[in-house]
């Protein structure tokens, strides 16, 4: 995983995937994209994004969603938004 992403975020995103795909032993990689797991479609993407928003207390704007093309992009975006909220926590 990208060293710029904290353990908290990478573990949190992993948990989101495991819950979304109902697979507690699921392993993910930064370069994975939609379709790389059975059943991973655009509806699963909505579930993943909304679960990340809930877990980290963030909200993705459309411009940010545009940039999320892989698991690594998602982790980086969660990290960026998490860090931006730090002064308010």
């Amino acid at each position, binding site marked *: 995983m990208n060293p710029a992403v904290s353990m908290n975020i990478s573990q949190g995103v992993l948990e989101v995937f495991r819950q979304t795909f109902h697979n507690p032993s699921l392993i993910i990689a930064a370069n994975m994209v939609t379709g790389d797991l059975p059943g991973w479609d655009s*509806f699963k993407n*909505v*579930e993943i994004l909304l679960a990340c928003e809930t877990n980290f207390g963030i909200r993705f*704007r*459309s411009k940010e*969603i545009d940039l999320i*093309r892989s698991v690594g992009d998602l982790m980086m975006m969660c990290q960026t938004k998490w860090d931006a909220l730090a002064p308010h926590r």
Partner: protein
Amino acid sequence: MPLLPIAELLTQSVRVHAHRPALLHPDGELSYQALWDHAQAFALSTAFIGTPVQIIAGQQSLEEYIQIFACLINKKPYLPLNPKMPAARVASMLHSLDHWITRSEIPDGTEPTRLSEMAYLIFTSGSTGEPKGVPITQAQLSRYCAILQTILKPLPSDRILQLGDLSFDISIMAMAMAWPHGGALCTVPSHHVLMAPRYVQDLETTIWLSVPSVVHLAAKAGLLPTDSLPQLRLGIFGGEALSHETAMILSTAAPHARICNFYGPTEGTISLSHFEIDRQGLQSWPQTSPQLGIMPLGKPHPGVQLALWDEEKQCFSNDIGEICAHSEQITSGYIRGNVAESALLNASAFSMHAGQRWYHTGDLGKYDPRYGYLFLGRVDRQIKYKGYRIELQECDSALAQASGSDQACVMPQFATDSVSSNPEIIGLIGFFVPAQDADLEAEENLHTIMRKLEKLLPTYMIPSKLIALETLPVNAHGKIDYPALLEKITIKP
């Protein structure tokens, strides 16, 4: 007033709206002037000049929108593909196209549409198992822009949602609503299409355009609560049957929007009729009436005649029948395999009555003076699933090929909790009789067949489940008993 060609319409739009946004894309925003400049630069490249038809791979990249615009303003036809299409299907389409291009150079008058007149070509599912190309001319596209202007009155200030994949003509409807009128096309990445409500909110989109299932699924994810899209002034559905429930969801989320249901096959240049839904009436809509659970198809567009064909009596009637259309908007024929079929060669889809050429849609309907045409289902085994039109015969052929069986049949699986007489299709189930030496239940065999199907069919045509049977049920005529197969798969979603 004479109708301007599509190239002229867009050129004029660029002149008038040069500095307005034409395209809002994840990879950048382009004004009309910038879109024009990029398109004309592309038109000078060998990638444009070297081919008679522009192939659009369908990645929905910024470059592809520029290429489409370049084609439209330079009167060059384009063929949009879908990256999820199997290589064999794409090869079949390109083979048909090559053959047609070669023959088009011979002006013998037998081709359905001449290359120089064509705006785009879209391949649809074919009943013979081979996809068939539907050529739409520049004149037909121009007239369609005028029809949209009459019905919807798009404005330069409009921002139009573009969710459809480029091989689906709802994407062309979005462009036809935006570009000739100075509006902005707002694209959403295909893998985030169900996040569309978030895009509408952030980009201040004013026109929603999608298949109903996008609204249904986005609402299921909690993205379309009441009054969440107050800036929408138009909500437009097309591409598949619209349920009352889905119309209500968008109506409630977008309290200021006119809601319209558009209907039509690819052969009719995107749409042939529309029904504007009365927002007040929607609240008290008689959706428990079997024929009104699906929203009406409405009345024909200007320049379109619709009628109901009685197959038994072989004439048009006022009773339930197959919806047929007569219009200059109907394609002149199909491009398939080594054959370019003129209208009359394809008797199953086109016919002549009282000197007029009619296209048979395959949709069953009836006419109601209050609502216009009502959709009652498909007359044959052609279905609409996930917004795509599918000839189940094509799925049957692929399953037979993949399983090595001569008995294979793919059936739609319907949701059983619907009050509608036309319940939602929630999946496809494949039945087959295995070859004699194959193990009926072996997971490994089913897995192998699935892998083969992935090479033969687009994802949306692949059955989600395969069921091996000792025999396929047959009716008294020895034909496959479809109702008996349906009974085997009637389960709750």
